[in-house]
């Protein structure tokens, strides 16, 4: 079977853009991606659009042109962008279409996400008691992980420090000022062990990717960036997830719990026919600093506990053995839910094209990996190859 290729990328800068709706930012990204691919909107045969809080993506046909194009909306928590991309590549893989679009955008109010229990099949009291708070879960997850595997708070700080340092060179990032490790560690705690610099914020932004069959990509004369795998998976038994009033007891609880991320990752490597050691650059969900650390292991890049040494040695820096979150990730870009997973793929395409400028990883990268995780235990992974 021929590969699906990413032939065009577009992004509306992340952060806060007063006066522009989430949809506006999505349209901006689509136009940029079309221009990048060298195609026009009427050439697009289908689209999948992701937005969590900024309206129905298919309404953007008003702005782009009423071509009658097939346009399907996707809502899948933090995996929404990944789900849109998975669906889009299937549409090409099936042979039904040659050229299409995955687009994601969002615009969230300031402050923490405000989830309601009924949206997650939970009783109202759970929210009344104050537990519908994603930051609580993330903090409790890393707290146990640090206890089991000897990860220090300093390592959490190193992840955040790297994010802001990388973002200096990413024009689409939101927080582009370096912050010192000392300032990160001494900032007020939000949910122990995390200080305010160790959590990302809900934000705004839009990303679009033009996908094509290999044949179409060759016609367009674009460098072939192949989507070797795109997986989206839900949680396995005994996992510990966002909004969990209880967790199963397991016989041997000395290790990491099974996660949707580990399932999505293993399946993606299986489909692509390569392993974690073959990956040149990775974008890993880092809604908080510890997430990047735990996801390094959940995605198979290192053993649990090795992150302490990896970070101390700078192995995940731009010039390291496995650069991680080269544009500053969610920590520096913020998290517009519908767009966030697609931003990772955008950044990977930039890196594979060698267009990363100040944040370009050295050594002519050939493979790139992206991973998102979200409530209530979903994960999406992609592997690109040039």
């Amino acid at each position, binding site marked *: 079977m021929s590969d699906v290729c990413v032939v065009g990328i577009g992004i509306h800068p992340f952060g806060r853009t007063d006066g522009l709706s989430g949809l506006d930012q999505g349209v901006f990204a689509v136009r940029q991606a079309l221009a990048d691919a060298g195609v026009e909107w009427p050439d697009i045969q289908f689209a999948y659009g992701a937005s969590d809080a900024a309206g129905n993506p298919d309404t953007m046909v008003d702005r782009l042109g009423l071509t009658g194009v097939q346009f399907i909306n996707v809502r899948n928590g933090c995996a929404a962008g990944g789900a849109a991309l998975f669906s889009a590549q299937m549409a090409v893989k099936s042979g039904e279409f040659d050229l299409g679009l995955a687009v994601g955008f969002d615009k969230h109010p300031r*402050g*923490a996400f*405000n989830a*309601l*229990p009924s949206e997650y099949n939970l*009783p*109202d*009291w*759970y*929210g*009344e*008691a*104050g*537990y*519908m*708070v994603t930051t*609580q879960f993330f*903090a*409790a*997850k890393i*707290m*146990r992980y640090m*206890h089991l595997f000897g990860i220090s708070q300093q390592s959490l700080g190193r992840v955040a420090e790297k994010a802001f340092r990388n973002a200096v060179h990413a024009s689409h990032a939101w927080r582009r000022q370096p912050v010192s490790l000392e300032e990160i560690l001494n900032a*007020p*705690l*939000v*949910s*122990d*062990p995390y200080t305010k610099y160790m959590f990302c914020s809900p934000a705004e932004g839009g990303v679009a990717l033009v996908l094509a069959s290999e044949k179409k990509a060759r016609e367009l004369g674009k460098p072939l960036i192949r989507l070797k795998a795109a997986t989206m998976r839900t949680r396995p038994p005994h996992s510990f997830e966002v909004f*969990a*009033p*209880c*967790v*199963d*007891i397991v016989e041997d*609880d000395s290790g990491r719990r099974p996660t949707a991320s580990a399932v999505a990752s293993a399946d993606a490597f299986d489909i692509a026919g390569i392993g974690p050691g073959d990956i040149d650059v990775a974008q890993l969900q880092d809604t908080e600093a510890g997430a990047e650390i735990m996801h390094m292991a959940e995605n198979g890049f290192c053993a649990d506990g090795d992150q302490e040494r990896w970070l101390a040695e700078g192995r995940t820096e731009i010039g390291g053995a496995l650069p991680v979150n080269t544009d500053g990730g969610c920590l520096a870009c913020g998290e517009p839910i519908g767009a966030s997973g697609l931003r990772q793929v955008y950044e990977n395409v930039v890196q594979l094209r060698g267009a990363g400028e100040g944040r370009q990883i050295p050594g002519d990268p050939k493979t790139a990996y992206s991973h998102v995780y979200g409530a209530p235990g979903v994960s999406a992974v992609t592997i690109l190859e040039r």
Partner: protein
Amino acid sequence: MPSIAEGLFTDDRSPRLIGGRDPVTGRILFPRPFRDDSEPVALGETGTLWSWTVQRYRPKSPPYAGPETFTPWIVGYVELPGEVIVEARLVDVAIEDVRIGMTLRLMPVLLDPADPASPLIPAFAPMEASV
């Protein structure tokens, strides 16, 4: 005293948490799932701390129904041996003294400690402090 929801606590003089046991797999969930054929189980009153954090800002209302004046509180996951790990407040312990593995006893508290009419929520306290 009223509890924050029906079916969370037993009616005993010292109430216990009610979980739901799946009749086929034996798996216990807390709270007992709504409209469910699981068997109600009065869960054990003692356990150990599995993980924890501190809620240091006031959650958004709705859904949060706690007091307007916010004081940070500790949230813990408490392993009730042989049953299930439950999420609940940790009380009667200073933040710097919280340790994974510490032994705890069920001690429901008021959602708003300053308001006696406030409903009871599940909470655990260190064994030493609750004797």
